[in-house]
């Protein structure tokens, strides 16, 4: 790798060093970037100009990014084009269950406000970390009689103070859950282009 980097970083006209580096390294330098192959020779990782081609006007097209392919060579994990979510902030909180009763659905809430600098409401994901109740990831609904909701969890986000994110979780029930305390994990997800 060092040899290739030195060659391309030399002042003046760069020397083209294409091909496989270090014998068994499985790292290949090409005109569109760096590729890593697996033992079967399948191209698994590509960093550089993804989807490079030359159009009719002779212009090289393609976007710089990262492309990662699964071991079977057919499933693209990171395609270098689709947006992704990054976790901008994460933490946990405790929420005590509501004191509902049959025919009387009540709720408890918890809000956490984080200085994310986001001026838009980001996607949030809230999941239960303790298994007292059967909810892995919100929203979770359990239907009661006559189409009513007997138990549920929801989560939402909104912008507060111009650039902060409020994460709100709600636990509601038509039964007395007030003796229960669950811990939840929240994740603030930022959509990002690659």
């Amino acid at each position, binding site marked *: 790798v060092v040899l290739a980097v030195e060659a391309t970083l030399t002042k003046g006209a760069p020397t083209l060093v294409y091909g496989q580096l270090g014998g068994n390294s499985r790292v290949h330098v090409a005109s569109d970037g760096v590729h890593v192959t697996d033992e079967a020779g399948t191209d698994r990782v590509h960093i550089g100009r993804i989807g490079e081609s030359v159009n009719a006007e002779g212009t090289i097209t393609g976007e710089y990014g990262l492309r990662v392919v699964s071991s079977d060579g057919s499933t693209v994990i990171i395609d270098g084009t689709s947006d992704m979510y*990054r976790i*901008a*902030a*994460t*933490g*946990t*909180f*405790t929420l005590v269950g509501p004191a509902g009763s049959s025919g009387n659905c009540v709720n408890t*809430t*918890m*809000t*956490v*406000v*984080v*200085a*994310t*600098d986001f001026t838009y409401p980001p996607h949030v994901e809230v999941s239960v*970390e*303790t298994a007292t109740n059967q909810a892995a990831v919100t929203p979770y609904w359990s239907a009661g009689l006559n189409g009513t909701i007997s138990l549920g969890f929801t989560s939402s986000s909104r912008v507060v103070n111009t650039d902060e994110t409020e994460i709100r979780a709600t636990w509601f029930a038509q039964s007395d859950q007030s003796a229960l305390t669950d*811990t*939840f*994990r929240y994740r603030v997800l*930022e959509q990002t282009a690659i």
Partner: protein
Amino acid sequence: MAMLLAYDVNGNVIATLDYLVHRDDQGRVIGLVDFDTYEQAGGEMTDVWTVEGATGSKVWPEWLGSRAQEFQVELDGEPGHKRAVALVHRESGERRERIAIEAAIAERIAAAGDQPADIRDIVGGPGRPLRLNDEGRTVSRRARP
């Protein structure tokens, strides 16, 4: 680096903020917010986050995930400059002392010499909280709690 705790009027931990990405003036992510440095410089953690039902927030040098909410915070220091000095397990009474954690970190760094010190087994990490047993003691990630 550290985790943030939010606690209620009784000192019970009710929420954590394990990490928050840090951005430059252009909005580009440049790392994680260093909560500990901010607190030591006199910053209030409520500048970073607020939690419903919380009366305060402090930095803690370990990552415990949601298990942190089994503890009560002990504070010490001058008014306006208090720090969390211990977490006390609400059921077992097990104490996790900041001074012992910081001493273990310093010892590990000294032993590493010029090499980077791996302190993950001491403090855990963002997205990799320490594993605790029922009494709130750290257990090996290889062992069943």
